[in-house]
């Protein structure tokens, strides 16, 4: 009897917490398609607000997708080889490098953006383009890609596989192509989802670095929250959810099989 009481109590508590997190989100999603928020769903369902959001912010949304994709490409090209070198080399230098690249996670996004502005403010065309935002995103997401790939390398003992391929005569390039990258796939996949998702939702850095001509999705969201009516802000949030939740689900799916083992 006592056991069931404890179970029910804990369940109720957990449900309350879940409600706290979920209810506003659901409110926002429904508000985005309701004709009038105050009269609730009785006033009718419409996609009007969603269309208006696209009218106003399609450029910002597209730019976010562009930046997220570019961030992904850069972190792959920079992070995967680096993860391999760090995994195989080991030693104090590798640990130091890992520490350094993980530092951006400790610094608030504001600080990194400020630092970038102070350093590159003078390079007009770079500072005014979306490339400076890309630079900030890369710095911020790189540790995730590197750590994700290094984690996979650690469990598969990539150093010995590398030696095995070398003993069979494969040159370093050959080994990288035939053995290293294929065996890093789970880490590359998980890292890629993480990088893309983080880049799409990044605000702190981007807010400081953006100009009226280089707005991104989250920047647009802040704009909408501040100056647009509730329904438009909600519709915009709805669009963001629709983009990001499938990504999160995919990440869960990829991670879960490993956890269950």
């Amino acid at each position, binding site marked *: 009897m006592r056991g069931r009481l404890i179970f029910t109590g804990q369940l109720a508590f957990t449900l309350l917490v879940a409600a706290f997190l979920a209810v506003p989100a659901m409110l926002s999603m429904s508000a985005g398609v309701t004709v009038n928020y105050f009269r609730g769903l009785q006033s009718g369902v419409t996609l009007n607000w969603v269309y208006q959001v696209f009218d106003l912010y399609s450029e910002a949304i597209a730019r976010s997708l562009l930046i997220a994709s570019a961030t992904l490409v850069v972190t792959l090209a920079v992070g995967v080889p680096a993860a391999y070198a760090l995994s195989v080399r080991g*030693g104090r230098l590798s640990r130091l490098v890992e520490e350094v690249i993980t530092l951006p996670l400790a610094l608030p996004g504001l600080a990194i953006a400020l630092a970038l502005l102070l350093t590159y403010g003078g390079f007009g065309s770079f500072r005014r383009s979306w490339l400076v935002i890309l630079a900030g995103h890369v710095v911020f997401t790189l540790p995730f890609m590197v750590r994700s790939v290094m984690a996979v390398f650690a469990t598969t003992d990539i150093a010995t596989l590398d030696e*095995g391929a070398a003993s*069979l*005569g494969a*040159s370093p390039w050959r080994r990288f192509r035939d053995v290293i990258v294929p065996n890093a796939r789970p880490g590359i996949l998980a890292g890629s989802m993480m990088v893309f998702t983080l880049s799409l939702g990044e605000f702190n850095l981007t807010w400081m670095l953006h100009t009226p001509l280089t707005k991104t999705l989250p920047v647009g969201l802040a704009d909408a929250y501040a100056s647009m009516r509730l329904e438009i802000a909600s519709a915009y949030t709805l669009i963001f959810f629709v983009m990001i939740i499938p990504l999160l689900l995919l990440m869960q799916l990829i991670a879960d099989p490993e956890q269950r083992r």
Partner: protein
Amino acid sequence: MSGDNGHGVAVRIEACGKTFADGTRALEPTTLDITAGEAVVLLGPSGCGKTTMLRIIAGLEQPDGGGRILFNGADVSQLPIERRNVGMVFQSYALFPNMSVADNIAYGLKVRGVARKERADRVAELVQLTNIAGLERRRIGQLSGGQRQRVALARAVAIRPSVLLLDEPLTALDAALRDRLRTELNKLLRALGITTIYVTHDQAEAMEISDRIVVMRKGAIAQVGTPRDIYFAPQSRFVAEFIGAANIIEAAIADGQLQLPGGTLPTVGSAPAAAAIAMVRPEAIQLVDAGTAALTGIVDSISFTGNRQRVSIGGAATQALIVDAPNTINVKVGERVGLAVPREAVRLLPREE
């Protein structure tokens, strides 16, 4: 640089030592000559430097300054492992999880630009040789330990290496499997006839597989010899105790005999000495009638192991003597027995640390 006559190359390790970056001295400068086609086992406890030596021969580690590796007289020290044409079997097998069994075996050939048809033929040949027919399309994760071991071997041999290097290939397997595979592996290595260097800490493996054993300890060679030499004529206490079981006897020598509490033991070429060390193998001691024997003792305990009996005798020497007796002899605990040992079986060892 492949073996011309299919026997592989002669290997010379010349003054190779290895000190690692953190200061550990894994290997003292060592010189060793291995003839083409020979199977040599590097044997010793962990930390003795055997794996380090193997990796230096492979080209995965560089010897300290002045050390050289020569294949058939040619200096290969500057060549990286990719260009030495060695076939290496790693302790963890290092099979590529992203490739099938067939692709794993063919990988070395693929890298050398061998045509697809020839690769397939060679893979088929090796699959027959190593007894893994039917597994070609499987992924590595689906294989048992024994199967993986054979794939690793097939892969290393596929490229017709000059030297075959095996790093504790059977250690990862359970005892029963290990025994079975040891015999198979031995047969296969004999059939191939390539120069083979094999690292293990298991002395039964070492004796079965090798033409010569190199016993190593603390980074240096303790003794080199055929299995028989090592077993019957160990040159140090360490080697005597590491290979097979040994009774170590410390006693004074007088009148050409070891003076023991329970009697005397004859030795070969024995100048009188105050304190000598001798070794006798358990199976060399015969249990005889106590009345006429030169050495007697009391039976402390008997362990019946099936095909033999292990009898512990007290009072004959200062330590208990272990006797490996036939399972048909009938002795009882507490009985006084005689011990007979042929003179050649009592081997004197140098007094050292």
